[in-house]
C-alpha cells in the first residue's frame, strides 16, 4: 500500500480500538486555551477562570482554512477561539482588531445551530454570545482587567501584583483564547459539560462540517468522489514544524507542469483521508518517533499490534521493558534471550501482518519528504532483526544503569552508536556528530537491519580507523566503546564478505598476520599497564601511543616498541618469563618476510588486539579473585 493509504487504514483501526481516546478527531485541532467560561442551559453566565498552564491544551473544532490560518485576515475557528472572535464587546473594551472577526464567527455559529446537526449546548452558547457581554462578564469576574477608561490594559501597570492572565497570555490580554463549559444538560459517557471533551459534540461537528464542504473530486487514496482538501496539516514532527507532506502551491517549480495545468489536475486528496492519515501520523510520531538529526522514523503495524524497536541495541531490545535488568549478560545468555524474544513476537501476530517503517525529513522549511518507506511482512522483519542482532554482536561496556553501574552486555550496538563510533568526534567526554551525517548513516544502517543488506564498507572502515587512533580520545572509555563497536562491525563484515568467523576469544589456530600483530600489541599493552601503581593509572602505555603507527608499519614500529619494553618486564620479576614466552609464541607464527613487508593492517588486527586483551584481563581478574580467596 502507499504510505498514505496505510496511515489512513491505521487511523480507522485506531478509531475502533482503545487508543481512540488519545487520538485527535478529524476536523479538530489543538490549541493552548487561557480562559475557561462556564454558562448554564439558560444561556446565563455562571463563572470563569484562568486556566493553569498544564491543563491548557484543548481540542477544538476547526475547518480546513482555520487550522492553517495565518496572515492579516485569519479565519475563525467554528466553536472556541480568541476574544476577538467570540466576544461581541471586544471593540467596546478597546480591542484593536475590529468587529468583522466576531461577525463572521457568529454567522458560522448560527449556521451550525440552524443545521440538522445542531447541538443543544452549542445553541445555548450561541444565545449567550449573541448578547455580546462576554468581556463585561469576564471583567466583573476579575479574569480580565480594565483601566479607569473602561478599556482592557495593554500591560498591567504594576509588575509585582500582576494578575494571572498577564502571565499566561503572550502579548495582550485581549488575545486570550477562550474555551467553554455548558452546564445543565444530561451527561453520559459521550456527552460532557466541557465542550472540548464532548464526543457527541465532536461527532455532530464532524457531520456538520463534512456535509457543508464543497468541491468534490476523485480522492487518490480512497478512490471515491469526495470533497477534496487544498490545505494539508503541518506540525508533523513537532509543534513548531511548518513543513507539509502535501503541498501544491508551488507554481515556481517544475513539479507538475507539462502534462497538467494545475495542481488539482495532477492529484486530489479528500479532506477526510488527509485528516485521518495526518492525525495517525502525528499520533505515531508523538508516541514512538525517533529523531536522528531532524529525520524522524516510525515503525508500526496498521492494526496497532506491538512491534519490536528496530533502532535499539540488543540490550534495550531484549530487556528494555523488563523490570529486572541484568548488569551482565554473556553471549550464551544473550542468544537464549534473543531467541525467546523473537519467538514471543512470532506468536503475537499472524504471519501476514504488515509492519510499516516510515522516515520523513524536510530539505527546506516548507516541505516534508517521505525519505524512507517500507512495508515488510512481520516474520520477514523479525527474522532479519534476529539476524542483525546475532551477527553484528560483540561484548560492550559503554552503557550504564541509573546508579552509574557499568552494564556489560553482548549484542549489536544501536544504529546511532554505530554512527557515532564511525564519524563521531569526542567533545567533553561524549561523542558528537553532525546532524546531516547522522541521519544518513542511520538510514543506511536501517537497510542493513531490516533488509539484511551488507554493511557498507565506508562505515566499517571509518569506525576501524577511529579505533586505531586512541590518541584522539581523552576518555579511555570512549575509545573502548569505539573499539567494541568496531569489532562488532568487523565481525559482521568479515562474516558476510569473506565468510570468516571471528570470535571474542583468542583463536590460537588463526595465523592471519594482522590478527597476530594485534595480539602482540595487546600483550605489550597489558604487560606495561600491570606495572603501573595506583597513582599513574592514567598514564598512556607505549603500545597505545604507537597504536596508529603500528597499524601502518607493524614491523618497524614493533622494533621501536620492543626496545621500550625491558624496563617494564623487569618490574614483573619472575612473571616476566610468562610474558616473554607469550610474545615468543606469537612471534614465531609470524612469517618473517610478510611481517617485514606488512603495511596498513586491516580490521583483523583490531579483532586480534581485542581477543588477546580481553583474555589477559579476564585471566588476571580470576587470578585476583583466587588470590583474595586464598588470603581469606
Amino acid at each position, binding site marked *: *500500500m*502507499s*504510505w*498514505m*493509504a*496505510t496511515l489512513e487504514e491505521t487511523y480507522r483501526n485506531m478509531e475502533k480500538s482503545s487508543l481512540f481516546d488519545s487520538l485527535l478527531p478529524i476536523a479538530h485541532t489543538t490549541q493552548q486555551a487561557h480562559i475557561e467560561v462556564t454558562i448554564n442551559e439558560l444561556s446565563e453566565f455562571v463563572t470563569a477562570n484562568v486556566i493553569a498552564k498544564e491543563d491548557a491544551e484543548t481540542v477544538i473544532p476547526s475547518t480546513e482554512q482555520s487550522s492553517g490560518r495565518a496572515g492579516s485576515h485569519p479565519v475563525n475557528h467554528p466553536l472556541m477561539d480568541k476574544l476577538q472572535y467570540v466576544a461581541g464587546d471586544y471593540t467596546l473594551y478597546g480591542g484593536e482588531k475590529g468587529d468583522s472577526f466576531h461577525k463572521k464567527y457568529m454567522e458560522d455559529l448560527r449556521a451550525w445551530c440552524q443545521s440538522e446537526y445542531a447541538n443543544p449546548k452549542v445553541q445555548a452558547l450561541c444565545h449567550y454570545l449573541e448578547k455580546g457581554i462576554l468581556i463585561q462578564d469576564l471583567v466583573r469576574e476579575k479574569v480580565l482587567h480594565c483601566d479607569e477608561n473602561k478599556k482592557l490594559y495593554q500591560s498591567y501597570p504594576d509588575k509585582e501584583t500582576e494578575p494571572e492572565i498577564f502571565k499566561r497570555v503572550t502579548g495582550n490580554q485581549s488575545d486570550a483564547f477562550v474555551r467553554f463549559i455548558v452546564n445543565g444538560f444530561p451527561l453520559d459517557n459521550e456527552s460532557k459539560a466541557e465542550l472540548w471533551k464532548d464526543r457527541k459534540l465532536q461527532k455532530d461537528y464532524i457531520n456538520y462540517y463534512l456535509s457543508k464542504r464543497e468541491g468534490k*473530486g*476523485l480522492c*487518490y*487514496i*480512497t*478512490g471515491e468522489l469526495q470533497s477534496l482538501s487544498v490545505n494539508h496539516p503541518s506540525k508533523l514532527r513537532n509543534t513548531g514544524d511548518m513543513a*507539509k*507532506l*502535501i*503541498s*501544491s502551491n*508551488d*507554481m*515556481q*517549480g*517544475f*513539479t*507538475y*507542469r507539462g*502534462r*497538467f*495545468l494545475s*495542481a488539482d*489536475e*495532477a*492529484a*486530489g*486528496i479528500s479532506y477526510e483521508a488527509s485528516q485521518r492519515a495526518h492525525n495517525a501520523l502525528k499520533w505515531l510520531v508523538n508516541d514512538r518517533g525517533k529523531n536522528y538529526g531532524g529525520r524522524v522514523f516510525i515503525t508500526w503495524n496498521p492494526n496497532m499490534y506491538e512491534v519490536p524497536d528496530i533502532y535499539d541495541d540488543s540490550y534495550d531490545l531484549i530487556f528494555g521493558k523488563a523490570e529486572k535488568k541484568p548488569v551482565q549478560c554473556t553471549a550464551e545468555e544473550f542468544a537464549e534471550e534473543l531467541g525467546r524474544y523473537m519467538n514471543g513476537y512470532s506468536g503475537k501476530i499472524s504471519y*501476514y501482518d504488515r509492519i510499516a517503517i516510515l*522516515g520523513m*525529513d524536510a*530539505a*527546506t522549511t516548507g*516541505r*516534508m*519528504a*517521505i*525519505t*524512507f*518507506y*517500507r512495508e515488510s511482512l512481520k516474520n520477514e522483519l523479525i527474522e532479519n532483526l534476529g539476524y542483525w542482532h546475532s551477527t553484528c554482536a560483540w561484548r560492550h561496556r559503554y552503557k550504564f544503569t541509573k546508579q552509574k553501574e557499568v552494564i556489560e552486555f553482548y549484542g549489536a550496538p544501536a544504529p546511532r552508536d554505530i554512527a557515532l563510533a564511525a564519524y563521531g568526534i569526542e567533545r567533553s567526554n561524549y561523542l558528537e556528530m553532525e546532524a546531516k551525517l547522522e541521519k544518513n548513516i542511520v*538510514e543506511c544502517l536501517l*537497510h542493513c537491519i531490516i*533488509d539484511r543488506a551488507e554493511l557498507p564498507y565506508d562505515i566499517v572502515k571509518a569506525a576501524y580507523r577511529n579505533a586505531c587512533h586512541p590518541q584522539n580520545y581523552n576518555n579511555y572509555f570512549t575509545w573502548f566503546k569505539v573499539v567494541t563497536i568496531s569489532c562488532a562491525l568487523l565481525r559482521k563484515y568479515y562474516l558476510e564478505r569473506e565468510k570468516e568467523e571471528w570470535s571474542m576469544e583468542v583463536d590460537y589456530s588463526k595465523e592471519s598476520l594482522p590478527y597476530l600483530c594485534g595480539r602482540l600489541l595487546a600483550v605489550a599493552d597489558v604487560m606495561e599497564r600491570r606495572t603501573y601503581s595506583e597513582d599513574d593509572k592514567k598514564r598512556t602505555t607505549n603500545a597505545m601511543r604507537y597504536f596508529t603507527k603500528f597499524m601502518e608499519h607493524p614491523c618497524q614500529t614493533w622494533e621501536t616498541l620492543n626496545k621500550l619494553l625491558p624496563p617494564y618486564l623487569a618490574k614483573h620479576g619472575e612473571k616476566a618469563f610468562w610474558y616473554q614466552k607469550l610474545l615468543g609464541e606469537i612471534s614465531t607464527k609470524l612469517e618473517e618476510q610478510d611481517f617485514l613487508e606488512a603495511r596498513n593492517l586491516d580490521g583483523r588486527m583490531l579483532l586480534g588486539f581485542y581477543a588477546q586483551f580481553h583474555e589477559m584481563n579476564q585471566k588476571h581478574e580470576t587470578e585476583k579473585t583466587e588470590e583474595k580467596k586464598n588470603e581469606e
Partner: protein
Amino acid sequence: MENAITYQVYGRYALFTDPITRIGGEKTSLFVPTYQALVGVTESIYWKPSIKWRIEKIRILNPIRTESKGIRPIKYGGGNDLSYATYLSDVSYIVKAHFEWNENRKDLAQDFIEHKHFFIAKRCIEKGGRRDIWLGTRECAAYVVPCDFDQEQGYYDNYGEMDFGMQFHSFSYPDENGEGILYARFWKPKMVNGVIEFCKPEECSITKKIHKMNKKTFTEGINFSGLKEPGLLHGDQGGNL
C-alpha cells in the same frame, strides 16, 4: 503471426512518482511501475503511430527497496531549490506486452502489418531499444535485454499476495480514445507471487477527466514521410534477425 514480446528491464534506480508527492516536489516513488511507465519503456524500444502497446503483465524480480537522495531541482523563474527524492533502488522487471492497431488512425491502415512490427520490435529489444530507456523519471536510466517471462528467479516467487491500494494506471490520450480529452485511469494492483497482471486500460473502473486535448494530425509531406522505402510494406524478407 505473433504480436507479443517479453523483455527484461533493469536499472539502479526507478522513480514512479506518487502523484500525491509530485505536486509538492518532494517526489516519492510508488512501489511498483505503473502501466503508463511500462508503455513508455516499451515505446522507447519501438513505436509507430499505427500501433498501440498493451502491457499484459510484469514480474518483479528484486525486493522492493527505497533509497532517498538530496536533490537540487531548478525553479521556473531561475535559481534552485532543495528537496529529497525517494527512489526505488536496484530494480529489475520482466515485462510482457503486445501491440494492437490504433483504430483511431484509419489513415495509417496501410501500415497495419503484424509481421513487420513484430520483427522490428524483436530486433529493437536485442539492440537495447531505439531510444534511451528510463524507469519512470528521466534520470533513472535503464537497460533492456531479451528474456523469457519465467526465465529468472524472483524474490517474490513464493510470497503470496501483496496489495498496493489505489494507484495510477495510465493516461488515455485523445488519439487513443478519439474523444479529444485527456483522461487518467486508476486501479488497485495486486501482486501474486511476484507477478502483476495488468487490467486492460478500458477496464479501469475509476477514471478522472483531466482536460481537453487535440490529437496530432500527420500529413504526408509535411510531418510524415514513411512507407516509401522499397519492401517496407511486404513484411520480413528473411535474413538474420
